[in-house]
């Protein structure tokens, strides 16, 4: 079970409060699909993914990104029990969506990079460490029910 110190929780929640979930979600998913094009394999029905600008402007990418990041927000409310919080989503990603858990790690890393670009100097090494721990915890929780 991942344990977050009070300092780590503060680093995470104080930044999260300033994040525009809709924008950041679209950006995170968009960047994942551009930087790691093989991840597009899960989104055949999303329409035009033919270029970086097509992907970043694609309304389905934005909508889905918002959905994913909103659920991430739930993780932040349940940092002490990520496995419990993501149990159902884990089953869904395994049984219905068939997503390789490596993709959760890739998306988590992309999210950290986006936060760094938004927050600049405020995104100190200590803050990055807390966030990398969180995204790793979420990725593990999402993979937990795989069989």
């Amino acid at each position, binding site marked *: 079970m991942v344990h977050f110190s009070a300092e780590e929780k503060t680093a995470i929640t104080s930044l999260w409060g300033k994040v525009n979930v809709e924008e950041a979600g679209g950006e995170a998913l968009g960047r994942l699909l*551009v930087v790691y094009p093989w991840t597009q394999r899960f989104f055949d029905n999303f329409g035009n993914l033919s270029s970086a600008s097509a992907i970043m402007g694609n309304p389905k990418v934005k909508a889905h990104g918002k959905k994913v990041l909103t659920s991430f927000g739930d993780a932040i409310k349940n940092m002490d029990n990520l496995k419990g919080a993501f149990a159902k989503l884990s089953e869904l990603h395994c049984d219905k969506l068939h997503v390789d858990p490596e993709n959760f790690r890739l998306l988590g890393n992309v999210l950290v990079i986006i936060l*760094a670009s938004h927050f600049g100097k405020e995104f100190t*090494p200590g803050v*990055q460490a807390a966030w990398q721990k969180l995204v790793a915890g979420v990725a593990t929780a999402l993979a937990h029910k795989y069989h």
Partner: protein
Amino acid sequence: MLSAQERARVAQVWDLIAGHEASFGAELLLRLFTVYPSTKSYFKHLGFCPDETQLLTHGQRMLEAVGVAVQHMDNLRAALSPLADLHAQVLRVDPSNFPLLIQCFQVVLASHLQGEFTVEMQAAWDKFLTGVAVVLTEKYR
């Protein structure tokens, strides 16, 4: 490997780093050691809490090597051959650590360039640094 557009983006970002190799390198190492403490196992000579001078010195060396790679994107193997030998025979850094360094590199770039760190730059640098890591570990066995 890298298209002409990707090379242009790598060079474009490098122009923003050139001249600041020491401070970028130091921040890169500080982030690496803070976020992924196990990586410190390769830097025993810097001690458990490397000071600023040590980070700047070693960071500069690493970023200068990245600069060499940027100048020779069309022939990384030849340009990085001595470094590849060093990593294979002396340093023997487990290949799983390179993605950790690359993640921290991207975070350094993103936090400094902020809105200017476009998705195309991120894609080009990720691909470029991954290519450098492949060359550096190619002679391992």
